[in-house]
């Protein structure tokens, strides 16, 4: 039995934490929060690139470190704990994963080294409206390699150089790579619940689009990308939830009411115990997801759904009860609780809401039981 990270991986995680403690400070997060024009922290992004993290799971032949997904999970947890204001998920979990899954060798050679080196920010543009993606629900279409249509919300769509876009090609949902600096691309930054992570509406008018994978394979590829992203996001969520528990614990020890530490009251301590319980469950499910992602196991869809459901629940509970534990100060702008609360919503929604994943999980159980 070996359901844990290796000593080397744990060391990587410790280093990542220390690095982000210094580089992704709350002051930096707030500089993005408070500046409407700022969509991410460019300096942080550069320093993350300099660490080599962007290429952690990219094979060496495409300019990455080729470490593997377990290492990427370790980094993701720390990114989440630090609520880093950077397009890590969009570029790595979505854009790079899409290329690794479906890209031709030429496409991988073109884009992956740019990602690994930090030159390219990528994004993922599948959504147009709430609800399931089907040929009928997708309005965007490509004709003669020209893309027309709208996509929103596209996380990091306002800062990315390139996007993976889902569009109909002759009525068949297909993925495309689109250069966002090219002609026919209009970007509009959106206000979202988490201003420390940007999102945009992208409008394409005959923008050049390069097919990724086969025609008609688009929806299936999106599902597979989401499975992979869900595991990595679960680690970000676990990191964030852990940080909330830590904050609540520190405050419960430092704050006094009626002459006692508030952490000595059962109302507080039992809530923190419940946070701990949910966080342990989420972490254990995330570890299983990491194994499935790393081995590309057939169990990946079930493992990803379990990890996402469990981590979303844990982060929601930890984020809201961290505020509650902080009392009046908890819901002010100046105290940091709301930053995690916002991020918990952002992460729970960007790859599809938990309610959708619950359905996916049971569908997978039905498939397994039918087999």
């Amino acid at each position, binding site marked *: 039995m070996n359901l844990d990270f290796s000593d080397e991986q744990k060391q990587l995680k410790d280093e990542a934490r220390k690095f982000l403690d210094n580089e992704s400070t709350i002051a930096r997060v707030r500089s993005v929060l408070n500046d409407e024009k700022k969509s991410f922290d460019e300096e942080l992004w550069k320093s993350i690139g300099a660490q080599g993290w962007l290429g952690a799971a990219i094979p060496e032949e495409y300019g990455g470190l080729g470490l593997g997904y377990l290492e990427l999970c370790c980094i993701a947890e720390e990114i989440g704990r630090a609520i880093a204001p950077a397009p890590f998920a969009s570029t790595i979990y979505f854009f790079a994963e899409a290329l690794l899954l479906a890209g031709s060798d030429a496409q991988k050679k073109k884009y992956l080294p740019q990602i690994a080196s930090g030159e390219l920010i990528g994004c993922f543009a599948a959504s147009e409206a709430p609800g399931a993606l089907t040929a009928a629900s997708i309005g965007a279409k490509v004709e003669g390699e020209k893309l027309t249509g709208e996509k929103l919300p596209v996380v990091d769509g306002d800062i990315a150089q390139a996007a993976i876009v889902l569009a109909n090609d002759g009525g068949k949902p297909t993925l495309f790579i689109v250069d966002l600096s090219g002609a026919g691309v209009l970007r509009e930054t959106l206000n979202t619940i988490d201003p420390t992570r940007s999102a945009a509406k992208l409008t394409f008018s005959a923008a050049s689009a390069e097919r990724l994978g086969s025609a008609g394979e688009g929806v299936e590829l999106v599902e597979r990308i989401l499975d992979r992203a869900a595991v990595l996001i679960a680690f970000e969520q676990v990191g964030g939830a852990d940080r909330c528990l830590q904050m609540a614990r520190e405050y419960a020890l*430092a704050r006094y009411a009626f002459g*006692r530490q508030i952490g000595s*009251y059962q109302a507080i301590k039992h809530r923190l115990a419940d946070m701990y319980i949910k966080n342990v469950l989420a972490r254990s499910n995330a570890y299983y997801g990491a194994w499935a992602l790393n081995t590309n196991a057939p169990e990946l869809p079930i493992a990803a759904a379990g990890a996402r459901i469990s981590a979303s629940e844990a982060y929601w509970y930890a984020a809201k009860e961290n505020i509650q534990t902080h009392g*009046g100060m908890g*819901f002010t702008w100046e105290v940091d609780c709301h930053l995690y*609360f916002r991020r918990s919503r952002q992460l*729970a929604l960007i790859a599809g809401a938990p*309610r959708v994943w619950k359905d996916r999980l049971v569908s997978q159980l039905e498939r397994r039981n039918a087999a």
Partner: protein
Amino acid sequence: MDFEDTPEEAAYRLKARKWLEENAPKNIADSSDDEIFDLQACKAWQAKKSDAGYAKITWPKEWGGGAGTTIQSVIFSQEEARAGVSSLNRPFAISLGISLPSVLANVNEETQLRFAKPGARGEEIWCQLFSEPSGGSDVAGIRTRAVKDGDDWIINGQKIWTSGAHYCDYGIIITRTNPDVPKHAGLTMFWVSMKTPGIEIRPIHQMSGASGFNEVFFTDVRVNDSQRVSEVNDGWAASIRTLMVERASVGGGDTPGGSSMNVYKLAHELGMLDDRALREKLADWYATSEGLRFTGMRMLTALSRGQIPGPEGSITKIVLANLEQDMTLQALELQDQFGLINDSRISPLTALFQQSVLGAPGMRIAGGTDEILRNVIAERVLGLPGDVRVDKTLPFNQLPKGV
């Protein structure tokens, strides 16, 4: 059982409705934001109501009130809502609901006559200066000091969570006048003009973007002993009465299902009403909202019968706040990725719930946290014993203190 007025109530309602039809301002800008109002318009309307006996209906005429009953006051509120002018009451909610009643209950007749009428007419607005950063739920943990200086007292310290401090004329403040005795024993209450030198007001920026609360700093603020509202070192008893007023509420929405119907409308618009998972939740929310509405009606029934309402109203805020948090979470989830978007041009429905999801955490805290409200229900309603208290016997300045 029925939902009808008694004949007397019906007559009062008819009279009020007629008066409102003739006098109420038309086309009040309807903002759902409690912090948005036109102060001068509000004051003008309040004065007009006072002249007609519709401002602070339960107060005597000589105080600018209406010499009426609580149920009449409720009926008039319902009619104001019907006439679309409820939002004009916003600046006076705390002044007339909490602060001024606390003052008047504790001062002599001369002072009562000085302050009651201008307050009822909205000419003078009162805020409440109780909470402190280090106090929180432990309201008696007051650190703001008042030190005697001849006929005056000098106040130094900081208050927090003061609604409307920036437009208020007066405030009621609780201070520590003796730190060498256990904490409930060394408190004294004063009234203070908000224009007194040494008072500085800073708005608090909330996570929801709202900023109706303020911090109020006191630096060598001088008040005369005649402004003392309680006996020296006996301010706690007076403040307890105020807190009871604040924490009680006759509540629940006025329309069937309350805000659960907003989620219903969202689901309808999204074509998701067939989702049984949502249906079960909607039914729970609807039943809970209705439970609150009917609880409010039971309280009104008691008032209508001339009785004192039971303790059931104590459940209102904790239920509403948690319901709101649960519903808004699900409302965002229903919209999948679109739930992210906080932009009413692109997704008007989302933006509505986005605001609520950011506001709900504060609802669970402001005006009594979930935990304090459960304590209150358990101890005052169910008669369970209080927690072990280490702070009732030690002198205040020997109590352990944290952040």
